[in-house]
């Protein structure tokens, strides 16, 4: 077993904007630790705020950084379908999020992992490929970023790095309604399709089914033991206080009986 623990939280339904504010809250706190909280803790306790955020979004389309300010037509059209719409500062191009898709936002300080940005993206790809392999799906990477099953994309990747701190992440299709992808050109790639774990396996595989597999493989690739924050909260008091002080989400931090 690895000795270092990476905690994760899972939010079964959270608006894109709220999740974005949560990520920014964690990243900003890393740049400038909250004094009041910091005072009561020793350095080791506040020095790491690494957290794997797992979640599902309601129907949402987002664009990447290079399309910022140039997508008002798409916005009107896609909002008309009843979806939320956000321009973001992540890498990559347009993608879709919705119920049944496992979204992961690792908030990691790459210094703690001695990884370059390039290696970090490769690590995310490796995590998804290994997760799929454990589910008997033969997935791979191609010259186009993301993870593919044949000519169809099963997982989109888009990341932002600010001073070694990562945010945004990956979106792995589990059993989401794939028709929502028909309204866009995912990641700017023409003539390529999208697929999901459930479609490939021809059986219903839920986000909750995939989470333990994903966590195990994420831990193996990044050399951590990934555990629910609620089970290790005494070792991550600063992180817990940060989340509780965010006033953004109600994290189920108390262990349920």
């Amino acid at each position, binding site marked *: 077993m690895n000795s270092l623990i990476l905690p994760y939280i899972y939010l079964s339904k959270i608006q894109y904007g709220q999740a974005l504010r949560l990520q920014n809250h964690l990243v900003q706190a890393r740049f400038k630790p909250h004094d009041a909280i910091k005072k009561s803790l020793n350095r080791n306790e506040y020095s790491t705020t690494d957290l794997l955020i797992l979640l599902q979004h309601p129907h949402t389309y987002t664009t990447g*950084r290079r399309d910022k300010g140039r997508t008002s037509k798409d916005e009107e059209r896609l909002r008309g379908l009843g979806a939320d719409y956000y321009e973001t500062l*992540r*890498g990559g191009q347009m993608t879709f999020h919705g119920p049944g898709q496992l979204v992961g936002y690792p908030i990691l300080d790459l210094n703690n992992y001695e990884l*370059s940005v*390039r290696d970090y*993206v490769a690590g995310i790809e490796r995590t998804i490929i290994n997760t799929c392999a454990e589910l008997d799906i033969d997935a791979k990477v191609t010259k186009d970023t993301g993870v593919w099953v044949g000519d169809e994309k099963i997982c989109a*990747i888009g990341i*932002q*790095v600010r001073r070694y701190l990562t945010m945004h992440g990956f979106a792995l299709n589990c059993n989401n309604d794939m028709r929502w992808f028909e309204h866009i050109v995912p990641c700017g790639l023409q003539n390529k399709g999208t697929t999901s774990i459930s479609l490939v396996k021809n059986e219903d595989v839920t986000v909750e089914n995939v989470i333990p597999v994903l966590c195990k493989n994420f831990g193996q690739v990044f050399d951590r033991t990934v555990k629910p924050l609620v089970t290790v909260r005494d070792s991550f008091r600063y992180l817990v206080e940060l989340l509780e002080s965010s006033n953004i989400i109600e994290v189920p931090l108390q262990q349920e009986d």
Partner: protein
Amino acid sequence: MATQRTRGLIRVSPVGKKQFTKDHEWVVIHNNIGTVGITDYAQKALGDVVFVELPEVGTVIEKAEAIGAVESVKAASDIYAPVSGKITDSNTNLSDNPGLINKSPEDEAWLCKIDLSTPEELDELMDADAYEAYCAKG
């Protein structure tokens, strides 16, 4: 030899020599204008660059503020201002040819020019030897 440093308008040490930040930007000063880019070390860590977001000319920025981004392999990495001042120019060649960052990061692929408002900030940057040691350690 004693370090030569002139108080007031003329500064001896930093002019014309590349200086570096911990965030892997470089800056070189001519006539109070700093030309800014990202280092060779940084471009290697990023991989193939597919998009560069540049600051707008005329923008007033503070040292360490984000002034743009470099996107590679689906990761957008923020770039920070090594010094405070006003953006006087940005390298629009990079909009059509972002890969230039990989080919010539410390020369042709400069990102922007900054008219320094606080030249004393240069004292906080690393020279080439210190930066090399910093990268080797990291």
